[in-house]
């Protein structure tokens, strides 16, 4: 039994490393998609965030300032996507694809200019994201002992706590505030929303920029917590996984959270089983993706895509 709890602790520990970046990005995606703008540029926005976060932290010696700068960098590309898709009524997939080239392109380009390499310098341990509860787990005895279950689960980076708090905040915004109601209205039936005096364009701009900011946070929570530097391969695919999590979670913040946790947990199992197993590590690596498909088919079923998703809004003349 002790062994089992200890192992579960280890798995949850990895889960809480994988989940937060996905969660930030997924919440961003929820904002954008629910307001009616498809954003496949999340991947690129995460990459620029991952880069800007490290640069910001190296410059200011403060991970939180770095984190904010990452959000800003993601937000700039969010603004670019908003301008293209809302003002210019561009095809949302094309614009997102462009962002997925531009943002990582800029990140690696600037990285070469600043550091003469495709990798940034490392953030030293003192300037990484803090672990708030570290002090609690110093003892060698009791449930708060170092390396124990509670240590593994709760002694995690501040970004993990922040990500889960944000889920609650976003849920509250979406379902308990006027602004949230407006976002949902704009995503489902922009014309009707417009008739009621809601500024469709403004709501969509806010949401798409927010999606960039949150994706930037997601990127930074990789490079300032799990890893401590930026390299081109640091994000690969996580933005797309976040988008998948949002579809999986039926475009709801709480649903996206469950999907991200499932995905993170499968990764935890993968890492745990992977160490010292007879089965090929490549087959074990498939677990998260296969489980996602199976759960999708068996338990989730059809997800309702916001009705106005993908369509630019044209005001009637």
């Amino acid at each position, binding site marked *: 039994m002790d062994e089992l709890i200890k192992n579960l602790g280890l798995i949850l520990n990895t889960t809480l490393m994988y989940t937060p970046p996905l969660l930030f990005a997924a919440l961003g995606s929820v904002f954008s998609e629910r307001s009616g703008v498809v954003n496949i540029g999340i991947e690129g926005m995460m990459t620029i965030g991952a880069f800007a976060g490290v640069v910001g932290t190296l410059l200011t010696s403060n991970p939180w300032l770095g984190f904010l700068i990452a959000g800003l960098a993601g937000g700039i590309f969010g603004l670019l996507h908003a301008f293209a898709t809302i003002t210019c009524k561009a095809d949302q997939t094309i*614009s997102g694809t462009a962002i997925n*080239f531009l943002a990582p392109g800029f990140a690696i380009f600037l990285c070469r200019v600043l550091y003469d390499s495709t990798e940034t310098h490392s953030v030293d341990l003192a300037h990484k994201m803090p672990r708030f509860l570290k002090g609690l787990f110093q003892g060698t005895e009791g449930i708060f002992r170092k390396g124990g279950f509670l240590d593994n689960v709760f002694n995690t980076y501040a970004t993990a706590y922040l990500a889960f708090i944000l889920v609650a905040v976003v849920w509250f915004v979406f379902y308990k505030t006027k602004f949230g109601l407006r976002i949902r209205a704009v995503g489902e039936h922009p014309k009707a929303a417009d008739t009621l005096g809601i500024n469709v364009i403004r709501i969509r701009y806010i949401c798409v920029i927010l999606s960039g900011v949150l994706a930037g946070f997601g990127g930074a929570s990789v490079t300032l917590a799990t890893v401590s530097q930026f390299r081109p391969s640091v994000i690969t695919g996580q933005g797309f996984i976040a988008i998948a999590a949002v579809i999986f979670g039926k475009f709801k913040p709480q649903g996206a959270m469950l999907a991200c946790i499932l995905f993170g947990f499968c990764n935890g199992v993968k890492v745990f089983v992977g160490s010292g197993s007879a089965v090929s590590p490549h087959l074990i690596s498939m677990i998260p993706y296969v489980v996602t498909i199976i759960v999708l088919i068996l338990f989730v079923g059809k997800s309702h895509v916001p009705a106005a998703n993908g369509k630019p809004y044209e005001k009637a003349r």
Partner: protein
Amino acid sequence: MDQNNSKPTVRKEKIAKDNKALYTVISILVGFTIGAIMLLVVKVSPIKAYGLLIESVFGTPKNIAQSVVYATPLILTGLSIAFSFRTGIFNIGAEGQFVMGSLGAMVVGVLVDAPAIIHIPLCLLAAALAGALWGAIVGYLKAKLGANEVLCMIMFNWIAYYFSNYVVKSKLFNDAGKQVSKKVADTAKLSVNSLKASLGQKVNWGIIIAIIAVIIIYLIINKTTLGYRLRAVGFNRNAAEYAGINVKVAIVSAIAISGALAGLAGATQVLGYNYSISEFAGQEGYGFEGITVAMIGATHPVGVLFAGLFYGAMKYGGKNMNLLGAPTEVIDIIMGSIIFFIAISSIIKTMKTRFSKKGGTK
């Protein structure tokens, strides 16, 4: 205002079509301008850099041939995605179908012993089938069970990725403990031995396959009832169903055809360029680059052919950018800017209609 309304819409559509090519050219120019600015930022002369780029692509027959070699898989994945767009699906799964196609070609290339005239078509067939099947599974999940295809495809891309690594490392196909698979037999290679000396080691027949695929897809889309059906489903699912088209079959076959093209792209890369498959360290990106090619080519098969050649040239020529001390990522920034400006070119159209309204003529 009145004048505009009185004109038949057919004329308007024609103008829009003619302008599409123009907007693409303008977008390419803007892309290179932004690239030039970035080069100036890092104190590299854009004239020198673009001169080198042109020379690296057109300088010698060998360079031209290598650019075409780089373009081949991009044309095919671009075609795959363009076809899917025409049928109302976004095949973000081309990446995984590409990987499965490479595997199919490699497996048949390694295991089968046959003369080239049989062996090559057999490998291509295996690749196309593998890609088609990988796509069709997602098509089935979507059509039968209502699963979201974008979500499924993203997962299938990664499953294909790890499956490929598994096969490469498996006893049957691994090359003596190395990070690569065994090489395909000489009879399966697409290389053109007689031209190797003049055009480089990697020159291959792949481009012929790509051009044939472009023609076939053009014919399917425009001249067959199958193409008509698939487009009808893409345009309006309910109307198509009402008209008696089996929508589920249409969805599965559309993704399968798209997948077959991506699979063929994988085959040209294995049989023409690499001859074996390496263990991946990151996604290859042909599927995602295919999205770009499809966009620049305006999802038209012939447009995709030229867009693929363009991208291939940029990729091959762009490698030399570092000779001047310029980051090669400038190519990504140029390509990204081009797509971005193609995307927002609709605003120019809107502005133009406004101007022509004011002017009254045109």
